[in-house]
């Protein structure tokens, strides 16, 4: 399938097209948007984790000079109780709307209740203090297992469990129970020579993007609404906003600014409808920015979870049965990534008998949002720790044990689909052969751990158009938010097809009015799917350019060939026109030339990673120091290797933070006690060594250049790899993340 074995652009490391703007401070992010007559919005949020709203009195706030409007959920149209599809998943409109501005109940500390527009952000904040809300405070439930109890406080009056696809009459905090089943797990365990079962818990963690959420809206009297903001998907915002505001999609234009990180957390609506109705009420553009505490308390996070894993193997080192019970916290409204976690938990392995039960459970925490391979890190922490323990008990090297049981092309995944060509084995082999793994680790309280991880990619929908300029350069118009260098990786694919240099393609991220529909930058899809669209659009350019060359030579298009940037006349081998020559004659050969493609590519490749970590545990304090880290990953084909490495390094480090430090601390009243970057401790440069990367390239047959999505899977193995390394260092199996010093110390002391 590969178009060419040798590439001129792909695999090189050009400077990204948006780079200079971003190193000089000129790039415009959502919060940087300025316009005449701008008002500033602030949001009043619930101080309680669970309460009924008895009344809201905004009169004193409205009376403050400089305050122009106050809105509550009464300013949004009544929310319909139906689900709309948004590519990566469905959203219930009622839940979506009530999460934006609470209805009659607040379901987490930080739940938005009202918002103010004023002439300055400070004034708006002063006005918030003047809004009087009367609450009936209810007991909160903060832990997934407690929320599943029959006598737990119920978050929703009308939530009934959907169990194995059937609606039930059971009123509960359990929104859904789903199951995957292969073979007969009981018979499998009966045949096993060794069975390990362990329970795991993980704390709530946040995506932690450095840029807080923002939205600026201008609602014109004619009903035309324009939104400027940082989002992972301008079209997704547009598509969600229309039913939430009760206006047609075509009335809404979303202009994506640069985005300061997302990791899945900037897909859901938060501020956009609030800014919109404030603008509608005031007739002015309104900008609403979150502060850091609001980001922690009201957006994201990824679920806390409870997972029980039981796995069995035979003496010859074969996995024969695996069972998982997985319960994920959805936050205030249903919709945790439990399904994705279930689909990933045993997928790296060939296991004949599998049973997976998953539960989506509401708790009094913010509604969870996707976070880089959502659900898969929790799952891998559990499964990869048990795999490690089985290998150890069988006396096998952990990587050799994985190699012996690795899933391969043609094998069926526990959730149904069959693996296409995948590179899991190759990552394990590369880890075994790495300098890191072959270098002995010595010293007191040091340990080396490994773990693997799986995350699928999605294709979804992308559109690209390419305009050919008179000098032979091209402008590439795409609609995928560029969070980490995808302008470059998309432009490079078009450049490769067109025989141009990367710099001769100018990629532009257009707004919803400037390019065809594009799904979110997420699901590891952008370089794959928008890249696919860029390739197709480039071929459309070449097809049209070939016709122009034929017209110039007065021959048939099929007698024109193209290669190395040159069109040739098959009938007259001496006749050649460069891409630039033809571009210069567009005006005389039929007019401007635009190539277009809209795609919904199906040939997505799954992504596997295997990580190796060396660490040291301080036996006096339990503090873990990462000494060396290597991330190995099947990347399909690295379009821009530097940015592929960057994804692997960044994902690994987010995983390290998740493993060692990051967690939401809640008071018993359900108030997050550490809603700042000081107390929610993300890794700093001083906490880390260099992160080595090994790029394994097993081309994805479903993409012309073999691209696999690389962004998400690197966060999957680290938590388990670190747990396994801590075991090697001090002999304790860590079954809760984060493995903070206090917890590690407790385990060391318990071991005695």
């Amino acid at each position: 399938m590969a178009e060419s074995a040798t590439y001129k652009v792909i695999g090189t490391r050009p400077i990204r097209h948006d780079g200079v703007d971003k190193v000089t401070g000129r790039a415009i992010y959502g919060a940087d948007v300025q316009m005449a007559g701008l008002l500033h919005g602030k949001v009043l949020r619930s101080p309680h984790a669970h309460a009924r709203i008895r009344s809201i009195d905004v009169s004193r706030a409205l009376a403050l000079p400089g305050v122009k409007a106050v809105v509550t959920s009464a300013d949004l149209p009544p929310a319909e109780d139906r689900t709309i599809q948004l590519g990566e998943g469905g959203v219930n409109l009622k839940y979506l709307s009530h999460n934006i501005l609470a209805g009659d109940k607040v379901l987490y500390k930080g739940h938005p209740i009202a918002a103010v527009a004023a002439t300055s952000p400070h004034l708006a904040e002063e006005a918030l203090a003047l809004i009087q809300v009367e609450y009936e405070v209810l007991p909160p439930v903060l832990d997934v297992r407690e929320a599943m109890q029959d006598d737990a406080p119920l978050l929703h009056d009308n939530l009934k469990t959907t169990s194995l696809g059937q609606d039930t009459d059971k009123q509960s905090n359990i929104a859904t129970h789903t199951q995957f089943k292969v073979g007969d797990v009981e018979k499998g365990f009966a045949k096993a020579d060794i069975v390990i079962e362990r329970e795991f818990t993980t704390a709530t963690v946040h995506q932690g993007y450095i840029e807080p959420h923002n939205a600026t809206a201008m609602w014109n009297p004619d009903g035309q609404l324009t939104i400027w903001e940082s989002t992972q998907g301008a079209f997704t915002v547009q598509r969600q906003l229309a039913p939430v505001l009760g206006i047609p999609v075509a009335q809404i234009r979303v202009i994506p600014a640069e985005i300061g990180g997302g990791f899945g957390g900037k897909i859901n609506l938060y501020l956009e409808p609030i800014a919109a109705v404030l603008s509608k009420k005031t007739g002015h553009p309104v900008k609403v920015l979150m502060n850091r505490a609001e980001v922690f308390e009201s957006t994201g996070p990824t679920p806390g979870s409870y997972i029980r894993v039981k796995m069995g193997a035979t003496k010859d080192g074969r996995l024969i049965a695996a069972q998982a019970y997985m319960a994920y916290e959805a936050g205030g409204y249903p919709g945790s990534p439990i399904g994705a976690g279930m689909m990933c938990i045993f997928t790296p392995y060939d296991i004949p008998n599998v049973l997976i039960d998953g539960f989506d459970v509401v708790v009094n925490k913010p509604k969870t949002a996707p976070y880089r391979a959502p659900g898969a890190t929790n799952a891998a922490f559990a499964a990869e720790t048990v795999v490690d323990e089985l290998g150890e008990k069988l006396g096998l090297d952990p990587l050799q044990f994985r190699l012996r049981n690795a899933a391969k092309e043609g094998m069926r995944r526990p959730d149904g689909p069959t693996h296409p060509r995948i590179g899991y084995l190759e990552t394990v082999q590369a880890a075994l052969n790495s300098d890191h793994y072959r270098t002995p680790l010595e010293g007191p309280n040091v340990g080396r751990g490994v773990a693997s991880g799986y995350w699928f990619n999605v294709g979804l929908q992308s559109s690209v158009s390419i305009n050919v300029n008179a000098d032979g350069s091209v402008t590439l118009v795409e609609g995928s938010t560029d969070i980490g260098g995808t302008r470059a990786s998309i432009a490079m694919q078009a450049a490769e097809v067109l025989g141009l240099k990367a710099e001769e393609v100018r990629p532009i991220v257009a707004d919803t009015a400037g390019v065809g529909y594009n799904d979110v930058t997420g699901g590891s899809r952008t370089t794959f799917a928008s890249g696919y669209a860029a390739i197709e659009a480039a071929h459309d350019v070449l097809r049209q350019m070939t016709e122009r060359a034929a017209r110039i030579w007065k021959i048939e298009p099929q007698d024109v060939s193209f290669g190395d940037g040159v069109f040739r006349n098959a009938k007259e081998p001496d006749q050649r026109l460069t891409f630039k020559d033809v571009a210069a004659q567009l005006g005389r050969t039929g007019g401007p030339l635009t190539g277009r493609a809209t795609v919904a590519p199906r040939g997505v490749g799954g992504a596997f990673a295997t990580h190796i970590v060396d660490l040291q545990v301080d036996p006096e304090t339990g503090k873990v120091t990462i000494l060396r880290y290597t991330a190995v990953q099947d990347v399909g084909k690295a379009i821009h290797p530097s940015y592929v490495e960057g994804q692997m390094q960044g994902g690994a480090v987010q995983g390290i933070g998740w493993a060692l430090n990051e967690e939401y601390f809640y008071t018993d009243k359900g108030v997050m006690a550490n809603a700042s970057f000081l107390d929610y401790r993300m890794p700093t440069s001083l906490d880390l060594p260099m992160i080595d990367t090994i790029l394994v390239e097993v081309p994805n047959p479903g993409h012309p250049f073999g691209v696999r999505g690389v962004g998400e899977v690197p966060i999957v193995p680290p938590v388990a790899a670190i747990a396994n390394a801590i075991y090697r260092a001090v002999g304790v199996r860590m079954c809760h993340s984060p493995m903070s010093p206090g917890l590690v110390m407790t385990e060391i002391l318990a071991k005695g």
Partner: protein
Amino acid sequence: MPTKVHVQMRLNGEEVDFLCEPRQSVLEVLRDVLGLTGSKEGCNNGNCGACSVILDGVLVNSCCVLGVETSGREVTTIEGIASPDGLHPLQQKFLEHAALQCGICTPGFIVAAKALLDKNPHPTEHQVRYWLAGNLCRCTGYDKIIRAVLDAAQTTEAKA
């Protein structure tokens, strides 16, 4: 009673004056009064470093200094790092090493790294990591940032 204070200071080598409310931080003044949006707000309490500026030669979080405190002093922001001749070596090396992904923390890192190299032109890897520990990056895992700063130090040295 006037609600704003008149302040004069030097900003990126130019004399400027502005009116600000006493409660406005330097970050707010830069962004909302002077229109320089290169300095970013990530936390507004001094924990992320995205708003780093150099105040009289000292690296500070501009969200933690009041605008009125800059009176008679000199501030350098990300907008003042490049020269008419081109990018500063740090900016160039950040691009060459792909030391940014989303880019929101990048201005803060470059300003902080400049303050380091002004003080210590030949830092070790550990010194770079220690100095930049006040700047959070969530995308890169810091690897390429550290390499870019070390490489820029060498380049600057070669030029000097």
